[in-house]
């Protein structure tokens, strides 16, 4: 198990407090927790791709980083108008 995989597992564990915030907090707290988890997920995907030596998997963090912006704005707009 390489250092990259260990770091990815540690970051997965660190997601738990943000997940609890999403479950137990208000709608605004949930949006903040969602943004946090998405940002960490980008790093986890990059770390796992490097840790398992799969160059093709490096496209996933790029896609998620782009989608993070769009989906974040969608949630924010929903929070502002409808939730």
């Amino acid at each position: 198990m390489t250092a990259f995989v260990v770091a990815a597992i540690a970051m997965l564990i660190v997601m738990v407090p943000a997940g609890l915030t999403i479950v137990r907090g208000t709608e605004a707290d949930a949006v903040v927790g969602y943004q946090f988890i998405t940002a960490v997920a980008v790093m986890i995907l990059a770390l796992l791709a490097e840790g398992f030596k799969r160059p093709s998997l490096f496209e996933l963090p790029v896609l998620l980083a782009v989608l993070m912006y769009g989906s974040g704005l969608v949630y924010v707009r929903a929070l502002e108008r409808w939730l």
Partner: protein
Amino acid sequence: MIRNVVIDVLLGLATATVAAAALGVAVMPDAYARLHYVTPAAIVAPVFVTLAIFVKEGLDVNTGETIVALFFMIVAAPFLSHATIRAMRVRDHGDWRQPRTREQRAKEPR
């Protein structure tokens, strides 16, 4: 050998940054305060991860794709934080602007 130590240190810094940010997100009293702790996880930690991959792989395709992801995160995070704060203020106060004080209203032309 030294390269592995540098990689371990960079990954440790990234993990510590994310852990501290997660603690802030969990502990802070409201969403306004929590949002401040998303930024280290969205900007600082990805820089450490990208540097660790760069040290491991050198300047190749994998590093390039990680840099692209890092670029999108660094560009998107401030816009997203601003939009989130704005939405929360609209939700809480009906308008994102600061309400005018009595003195400011008195100075306005009638």
